[in-house]
């Protein structure tokens, strides 16, 4: 019971902080969004030049460092990696492309639903469908092989990079890009965002909260532990939005969202399938990267590159809708996921084993 109350509290605080971050200046229904925030960071570094989405988001830095600090204190920090890093890199690019066609990572999907955005309910249907496809391959033996223990320095580097990003944000040298309008210009004060990230990062390290694992474990093992976290994010953000009068139910004119149901569904299906293959959603990958998991650090870099590709190639959606390039990319990404799923399952090795 103690274990379950931990994840319920973690989910509740994420939901509550998400609403408060919007209150303090973050874009609507975007208190936390790992995809959007890594995309904004990619923009600030000049990896893409979409002028409205450029800002080094302290929430991401906080998540990584919160997880790093707590895992170091409770001796759970463990530097490890080497489990198919290039495959994970490619999978992460796919997850980011899917998320930016939908306009949000799975965590923002929950927050969008809590704000009354019904398009995100369509996204959730896609997300669950994608997870089910991933589970099919897990049951066929899909795995990315084992990881290995590495030197401590290897695990420290990703948290150190995040300290560097924080320094860049505070110093704000002229070679960085910061949006003057649009979502990239909407942000809570740095210290509030950083504190929220640190607290949530530590709590998520302790409770293992994962938005993709929630549905996966429920279907695969009838284990509702992670689902309790998922649902308490939704409940807390919903209550918070109702209290602050930010709950606006409907499909049309939702903040930083489009109404194209098919592509909301398919974008999130990619994110769900890819997240199951990666072993966790983008949010969970940030926490694992803070714990010294360098496969998850590779995932973070894949998400960053995926964001740059999405905006440089015109794949990302906007409030105006989906782009033709984005639709083609989603099709290609499904083929990539299918190939990776198939090649790492027992379809190929079965004959060899028997």
């Amino acid at each position, binding site marked *: 019971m103690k*274990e379950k109350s931990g994840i319920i509290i973690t989910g509740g605080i994420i939901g509550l902080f998400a609403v408060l971050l919007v209150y303090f200046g973050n874009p609507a229904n975007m208190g936390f969004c790992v995809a959007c925030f890594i995309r904004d960071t990619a923009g600030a570094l000049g990896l893409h030049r979409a002028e409205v989405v450029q800002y080094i988001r302290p929430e991401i830095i906080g998540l990584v460092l919160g997880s790093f600090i707590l895992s170091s204190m409770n001796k759970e920090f463990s530097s490890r990696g080497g489990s198919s890093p290039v495959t994970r890199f490619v999978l992460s690019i796919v997850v980011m492309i899917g998320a930016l066609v939908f306009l949000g990572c799975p965590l923002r999907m929950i927050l969008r639903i809590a704000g009354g955005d019904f398009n995100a309910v369509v996204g959730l249907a896609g997300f669950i469908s994608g997870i089910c496809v991933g589970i099919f391959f897990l049951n066929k033996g899909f795995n*990315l092989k*084992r990881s290995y223990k590495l030197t401590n320095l290897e695990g420290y580097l990703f948290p150190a990079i995040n300290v560097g990003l924080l320094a860049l944000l505070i110093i704000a040298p002229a070679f960085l890009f910061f949006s003057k309008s649009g979502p990239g210009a909407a942000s809570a004060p740095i210290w509030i965002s950083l504190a929220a990230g640190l607290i949530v990062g530590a709590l998520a390290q302790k409770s*293992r909260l994962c938005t993709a*694992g929630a549905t996966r474990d429920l279907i*695969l093992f009838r*284990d509702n532990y992670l689902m309790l976290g998922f649902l308490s994010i939704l409940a807390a953000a919903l209550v918070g939005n109702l209290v602050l009068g930010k709950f606006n139910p409907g499909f049309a004119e939702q903040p930083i969202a489009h109404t194209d149901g098919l592509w909301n569904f398919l974008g999130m299906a990619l994110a769900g399938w890819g997240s199951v293959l990666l*072993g*966790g959603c983008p949010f969970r990958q940030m926490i694992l990267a803070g714990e010294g998991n360098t*496969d998850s650090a590779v995932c973070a870099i894949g998400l960053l590159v995926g964001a740059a590709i999405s905006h440089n190639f015109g794949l990302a959606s906007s409030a105006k809708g989906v782009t033709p390039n984005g639709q083609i990319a989603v099709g290609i990404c499904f083929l990539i996921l299918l190939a990776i799923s198939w090649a790492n399952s027992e379809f190929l090795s079965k004959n060899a084993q028997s």
Partner: protein
Amino acid sequence: MKTIDTCGMSCPQPVLMTKKALNEEKDGIDVIVDNNTAKGNVLRFMKSAGYSVEIEEKDGTFVLKAKK
């Protein structure tokens, strides 16, 4: 007692491997895990499947012994 080694495997492999092994060895198995997340997940799965579980720690890994 059959022993399975889940060291280095990422989520949800340790639990999947445990589930598969328990389907074949219904009396019980030993599962080696190398991190607290996998320990918690495998422990929860074994208990919900109706096994009593003993945990031994050695050299940074844990052995979860499931018995009927």
